């Protein structure tokens, strides 16, 4: 699957980074270089894709305090 990092930079310089096409914690590893380079992390959200393993099995959904509403 295609794996990309999307960075949205507002007209006032605020940034939001999103990963796409990753499963599990690999998204954090892939984008960490960019987070560290740009500044200080303010907020982090994980979607259901984060809790999905490479073979498509969702895990740990019940213990995710920051899972956004569907």
């Amino acid at each position: 699957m295609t794996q990309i990092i999307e960075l949205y930079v507002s007209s006032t310089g605020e940034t939001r980074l999103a990963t796409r096409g990753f499963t599990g914690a690999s998204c954090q590893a892939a984008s960490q270089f960019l987070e560290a380079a740009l500044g200080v992390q303010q907020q982090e959200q994980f979607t259901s894709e984060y809790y999905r393993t490479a073979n498509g099995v969702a895990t740990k959904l019940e213990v995710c305090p920051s899972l956004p509403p569907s």
Partner: protein
Amino acid sequence: MAGALALVTHKQFQVRSKYLSHIVNIQTEVRDPAAVLAACQRLGLPPPVQRTVKLFSGSAAGLAVELPGWRYPLVCETATGSLKYDNYQGAWGDTLQLDQFLQAYACEKAKLEARRRGYSTSEQRLADGSIKLTIQVAGGAA
């Protein structure tokens, strides 16, 4: 006013699509001289100069950036990531110029880091004035 620290506050972006796994909001810190130079080139500004700048009250040392219409330069203290400036709440320099510099810095810094790792990038200006930078990590072109 002198020595004001530029804070880039969080604002909600609408990022809604399938297969997003991880979303992070970041407060930009200006720490990379190469990206400051790239931001100046992008905006058509003179190259930044490392020097001590006298502001209306006090002084600041760092990379001095001449923003259009600003009475005093913007000083980037890259060691700390902070910005020092004195625009007297807009009377001595339009904050829009500072915002544009921060946007340009974030874009150029991200592109520099992506290219350093061999990733391809593509850039798109959105209708609300924000910029979407797509970084291809694996599986095709950005």
